[in-house]
């Protein structure tokens, strides 16, 4: 059954995401990164977004290639030689480091995709319009204009192809030149429209005084639970990190205790528990209601 993850407060999600981002950026322990990976998989699969796992790879592929190549070329340390090419040694260590960095990149991609799934745009708009009404209005107007401008451009392109403009001309210069009339018309008429939009907002009393909020978002019990847990996670992580038990430097030597130690295991388990926590909090009873 598909779960609905749109029930959390925007701030809860933002806070958790930044915590995860800090861990991804600053952590070298493969175990912890795997924990985060598992957490993402759980979320994607349980809310029916398994396709996103694949899509993430698609976005990731070009960056992955660059990451791998550059890192392989420039990381020269290491003792276990794999092969020699262009007068350079390629070591197992450099391969592992490159993979780790690429893996982090993938995790960051997933993090953004997960935010897209979990943030309910309607609730986000409610929240932001209560805190930042002007920016929210500006974003909303832009968001509304975008598709209609795009359609208008398509129509204009048709009209000007009838008027004899050649949009498939030779060379970049000609092609850009073909857009002279339609870009000018679009800019002019959209700016004309801007005055109407401004007037409509004015007449509707925007910025006329103290605002109230429709559908005010409340920071509920589940939000407190998740936020506190995420806070605990970062504290524990920092503790082990500072105590040095998470330092993972592959060039010093590959050693099992570097992979798996008390710190790494603790944070790993905490990440799994975060996934479990989210699952419990979003569990619906038979009536489709949330337990918390």
């Amino acid at each position: 059954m598909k779960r609905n993850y749109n029930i959390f407060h925007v701030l809860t999600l933002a806070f958790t995401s930044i915590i995860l981002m800090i861990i991804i950026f600053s952590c070298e322990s493969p175990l912890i990164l795997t924990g985060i990976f598992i957490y993402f998989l759980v979320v994607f699969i349980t809310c029916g977004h398994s396709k996103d796992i694949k899509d993430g790879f698609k976005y990731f592929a070009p960056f992955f290639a660059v990451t791998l190549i550059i890192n392989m070329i420039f990381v020269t340390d290491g003792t276990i030689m794999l092969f020699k090419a262009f007068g350079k040694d390629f070591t197992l260590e450099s391969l592992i480091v490159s993979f780790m960095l690429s893996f982090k990149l993938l995790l960051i991609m997933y993090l953004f995709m997960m935010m897209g799934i979990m943030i309910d745009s309607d609730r986000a708009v409610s929240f932001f319009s209560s805190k930042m009404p002007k920016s929210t209005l500006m974003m909303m107007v832009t968001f509304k204009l975008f598709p209609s401008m795009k359609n208008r451009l398509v129509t204009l392109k048709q009209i000007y192809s009838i008027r004899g403009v050649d949009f498939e001309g030779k060379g970049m210069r000609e092609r850009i030149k073909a857009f002279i009339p339609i870009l000018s018309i679009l800019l002019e008429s959209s700016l004309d429209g801007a005055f109407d939009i401004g007037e409509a907002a004015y007449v509707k009393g925007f910025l006329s005084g103290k605002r109230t909020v429709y559908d005010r978002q409340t920071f509920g019990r589940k939000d407190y639970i998740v936020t506190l847990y995420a806070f605990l996670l970062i504290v524990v992580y920092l503790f082990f990190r500072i105590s040095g038990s998470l330092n993972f430097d592959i060039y010093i030597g590959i050693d099992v205790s570097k992979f798996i130690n008390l710190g790494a295991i603790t944070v790993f388990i905490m990440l799994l528990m975060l996934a479990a926590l989210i699952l419990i909090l979003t569990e619906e009873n038979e009536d489709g209601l949330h337990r918390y």
Partner: protein
Amino acid sequence: MAYIDIKGLSYSYPDERDRALKDVSLEIEKGEIFLLMGDSGSGKSTLLKCISGAIPYFYGGTLWGKIEIQGKAVENMTHQERSGTIGMIFQDPERQLLMNKVHREIAFGLENIGVEEKNIKRRVWEALQFSNIQDIALQDINTLSGGQKQRVAITSAVAGLPQCILLDEPTSQLDPSSAEEVVELIKKINDELGITIVVVEQRVDRWFQICDRIGIMKDGMLLFVGTREELYLSDDEYLRGFLPTRLKLAKALGIEKMPLTIRETRRALGRFEFRLKEDKHKGSSKCILSIKNLYCGYGNEEILRGINLLVNEGDFIGIFGPNGAGKSTLLKSIMGLLKYSGSIRIMDKEVKNLGVRDIALISGYVSQNPNDYISKDTVYDELKFTLDNYGIKDDGVIDITLKDLNIYELRHKNPRDISGGERQRVAIASILVLRPKLLLLDEPTRGLDFEAKRKLGRVLKSLNKNGTTIILITHDVDFASEFCDRFGIIFNGEIVSIGTREEVLSESIYYTTEINKLLRDKNKRIFSLEQALSSVRR
């Protein structure tokens, strides 16, 4: 004391010498529906903006005189007070909705005027119910039709429970059915909530029925204020031009007492007979456009479903149909802008096999929005632009075209500074300069006032007489009936009826002129005021 009290109001826009309003005095009573009319540029919208406070607080400029709402001068009201007292609806539904979802849009105004939070949700949903649009409450505004958007805009005004709602040409961008719904909704708002309504509109017929009093403006001055009966009894030719067609007929026939409803008009006309001479049809048999079994659509959505159409040289065809029936799609597919299956042949050439540039030389197309054609600084350059793109030298064809369209004297003017009707003709000229045999027009009369429409119609008619075949799609049956000679109706991507005026309009339940509806039981072949007057036997 009047509810809205305007005394000696004059106004000039910033940076402009001429006054847009000249010494206007007007009293509007609480709870009435006041209809304000006038040609474009007469100052009627400006007057509305003065009442809403957008003038001068948003637009600037200089204002003389006073406006009071319920005894309180507008300048002494705070912005929030004004927004809470007055709601406003604009012409273009696209440009007045600011949020993404319908319910949020309705809440937006309430948030701004500081309605208590516990009441907002309730007001939003009650307003939605009042307007009977709960079904679209959670939808994205981008997915709505123009008519739906306009009802959302009105609902959001109602939710604020204002004392007064101002409407600036609220139906001018809508098709007739949507326009009717908007009028009904406004009537309900006035009836049930007692909200004062001031509506500015060019098309009078619909609003005439529900309004209490009428004001008519010209050149920034208020020429007339009075009841419908007073307007009917007026001897002024110009003022009478604003009467609905049926009343123009009644007046011309010398009926003294204004028949209030259509039914009364029909009764009052009972003693008249209308006899029309048979008129001959000019017939050409040379086929210029032949469409067979045409299917066309966007993506997975099929819009045209098996269109068959034969157009002969010299035809002037008007095509009607509701929004989304496929009218515009039909024109675009003829121009080769869309992929289609079936066959479209212009002058015996299959459109599929031609490039857009080849088609444009034999068939011209003008879209709904004449502003799309304004890219140069003079009218002349606009036409030259098209010619240059085709590498054709101007051997006087520009001047001929300009004269054909009656805009020769505007040739050195900036097309941005001319009236809407003139701009429409410039748009047509910029296409017609290629001298196509066939001309396709998409709603050419949208937003034009009475006089501009008439001029456009005459110009098109003379073009047609000189050999240009014209197909136009329109919602304006009166206009089409006056100028076209063949008619078609499209429903659900099919042409359900095509033929002469008598074949199509006389049999129509919906798509016919007001005069025809009024007189069809006496004589089915009468469609216009002129016909009625010339055929009347007392």
